[in-house]
């Protein structure tokens, strides 16, 4: 039912077909099939016309699997491109389960993007949750196992918010239609749905699952995860809740919060995870402000972010693959041994920093300019502060301490990096630069009509970006001995999540266990004794009551039978005497009663 007669091949079909087929494919040639679903997805989203496709009935509900419009198409387009890059990067991986789960996850993201109703959205939302959990677990170590459980628990709770919201909404309005909600008419169920979306968007303080889980994923799995979960959430927020003021504030808080934590982190993939929180903050803020320019800025930034963040995770993934760690205090002095990893990483680092020539420059500035034009000055200033922090951490700190700091390191054992990993990174880098140089590559697909087109390539915009980033670089130069990473765990909101978890555990293991013990004792004393008494009573009743009645009847019948047998003696005179006695008795009874 997903593929329709009108020619729309839903991208999910290819990914799920491959996930089902992979376990049965022998040899090694199956690896080339990994590229097929992304290529089909790219072809599909580039050729399909907007419209409604693929309705299906399930549990008495009509599911709309293919809502194709400008908004869903641009997200699907970048998902398709990123899935191809991710699959190329993962081609060397022999573990089929990793590929299967990547397919389940990516297919789920396409399902959410094209979902026309909440029920369809929820189903694919949960597929994403399952697929991504496995992408963490499949790193197959103790830390990833624990992180995967925490991640799954947290996303299950987020999914339950969504489920509760959509069921409450169904009860109130009688359908599962997924459309924009007017910010002034938000009902409690809308807030519940929004909460579910905010969990996946990593809105502070619901964000701590992200820096907890993404650093523990597989080398290739984290590349997929950094692209799809939060951006699917951005898409649904944009479709359902643009203009909701709380998102403007929450998004700006995310922008700053993420960079502050990244500033003090040691693990490279954890730094990048905090920068997902920060960069998604620009998008969430743009959605909350709700003007055409800020919303287009959110979409453009989501597109650019998927490409450069994927590239950043690919770069740090190479470090993890080659050196076995992404902790900056253990790295350093590797630039001459991993020069291309450094160079390709830097393309992404400059992109995320909003440096001219790279795609972050044409997307981030659109949101900030839109915020300023909407007279949200403080929000725009906070976004600029976040831009400073981004360049400090991802643009300079991470590559400096991973590749440059310390003398040339010739002793660290480095595993050779497969060619396909370089190819995947090069694909991402080419797109980051191409979009930066030719913004229309991206702008032509933006879904919202603007009063005037945004032009990033003005002399002032370039100079402003260079001033901001150049002097941020000077700040790093001055404080390079202070910002040196240390092997520490920085407490975040997950401290409180764990506290809640421990609280529940303590509640179960102590007060509830005590109540259970007391109840068992009370049952043993009162309940069991009562039951024994009841049993004794039942035995007595059975003996004295049931047995007396039943056995008594039997004995009576037997005695009557014996008496009858005695009476039937065969002697006529006894029969006559008995008949006379009976007649006399009956006559006396009748006479007495009359």
């Amino acid at each position, binding site marked *: 039912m997903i593929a329709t007669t009108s020619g729309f091949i839903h991208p999910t079909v290819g990914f799920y077909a491959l996930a089902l087929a992979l376990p049965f494919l022998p040899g090694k040639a199956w690896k080339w099939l990994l590229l097929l679903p992304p290529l089909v997805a790219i072809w599909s989203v580039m050729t399909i016309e907007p419209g409604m496709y693929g309705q299906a009935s399930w549990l008495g509900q009509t599911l709309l699997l293919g809502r194709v419009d400008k908004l869903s198409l641009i997200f699907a387009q970048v998902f398709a491109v990123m899935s191809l890059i991710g699959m190329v990067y993962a081609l060397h991986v022999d573990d089929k389960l990793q590929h299967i789960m990547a397919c389940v996850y990516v297919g789920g993201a396409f399902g959410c993007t094209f979902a026309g109703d909440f029920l369809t959205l929820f189903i694919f939302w949960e597929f994403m949750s399952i697929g991504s959990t496995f992408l963490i677990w499949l790193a197959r170590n103790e830390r990833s196992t624990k992180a995967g459980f925490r991640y799954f628990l947290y996303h299950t709770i987020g999914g339950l918010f969504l489920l509760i919201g959509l069921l409450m909404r169904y009860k109130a309005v009688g359908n599962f239609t997924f459309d924009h909600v007017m910010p002034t008419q938000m009902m409690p169920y809308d807030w519940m749905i929004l909460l579910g979306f905010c969990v996946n968007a990593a809105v502070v303080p619901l964000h701590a699952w992200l820096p907890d889980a993404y650093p523990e994923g597989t080398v290739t799995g984290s590349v997929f995860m950094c692209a799809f979960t939060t951006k699917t959430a951005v898409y649904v927020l944009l479709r359902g809740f643009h203009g909701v003021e709380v998102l403007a504030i929450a998004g700006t808080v995310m922008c700053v919060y993420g960079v502050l934590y990244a500033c003090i982190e040691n693990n490279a993939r954890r730094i990048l995870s905090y920068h997902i929180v920060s960069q998604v903050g620009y998008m969430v803020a743009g959605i909350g402000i709700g003007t055409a320019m800020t919303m287009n800025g959110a979409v453009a930034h989501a597109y650019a972010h998927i490409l450069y963040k994927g590239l950043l995770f690919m770069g740090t993934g190479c470090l993890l693959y080659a050196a076995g760690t992404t902790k900056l205090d253990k790295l350093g002095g590797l630039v001459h041994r991993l020069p291309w990893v450094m160079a390709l990483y830097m393309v992404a680092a400059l992109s995320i920093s909003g440096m001219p020539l790279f795609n972050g420059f044409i997307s981030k500035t659109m949101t900030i300019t839109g915020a300023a034009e909407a007279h949200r000055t403080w929000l725009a200033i906070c976004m600029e502060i976040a831009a400073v922090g981004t360049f400090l951490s991802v643009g300079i700190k991470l590559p400096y301490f991973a590749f440059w700091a310390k003398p040339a390191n010739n002793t660290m054992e480095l595993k050779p990096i497969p060619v396909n990993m370089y190819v995947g990174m090069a694909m991402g880098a080419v797109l980051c630069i191409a979009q930066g140089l030719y913004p229309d590559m991206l702008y032509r697909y933006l879904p919202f009509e603007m009063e005037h087109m945004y032009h990033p390539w003005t002399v002032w915009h370039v100079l402003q970006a260079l001033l901001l980033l150049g*002097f941020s670089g000077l700040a790093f130069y001055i404080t390079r001995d202070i910002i040196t990473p240390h092997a520490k765990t920085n407490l975040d909101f997950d401290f409180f999540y764990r506290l809640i978890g421990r609280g529940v555990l303590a509640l179960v293991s102590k007060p509830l266990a005590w109540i259970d013990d007391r109840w068992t004792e009370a049952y043993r004393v009162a309940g069991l004794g009562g039951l024994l008494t009841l049993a004794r009573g039942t035995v007595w009743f059975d003996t004295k009551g049931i047995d007396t009645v039943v056995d008594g009847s039997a004995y009576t019948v037997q005695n009557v039978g014996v008496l009858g047998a005695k009476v039937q003696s065969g002697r006529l005179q006894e029969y006559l005497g008995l008949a006379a006695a009976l007649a006399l008795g009956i006559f006396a009874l009748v006479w007495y009663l009359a």
Partner: protein
Amino acid sequence: MSLFGMLLNWLRSKTGLLAGLFFLGLLGLVGANVFIRPHEVEFVYDAYPGFWAVFGLVGGLAMVIIMKKIVQPMISRGDDYYDRNN
């Protein structure tokens, strides 16, 4: 070591030269800002030349010093803190 790797290694030995070029570049940018101003003033003070330079420098310094010197000592624990406490 690849040719590219050797080039980057050579650059490591020229940090003084690179730093000098960097400072010159920054001076050039501030000089350009005297003549090139925003089309529309967005934050009042950005009309003044050097505003974004000060913003980037002060913002960066404040962020690093506050987070590393004040906040991190308060919120950081041992690297294996959660491993030991779970």
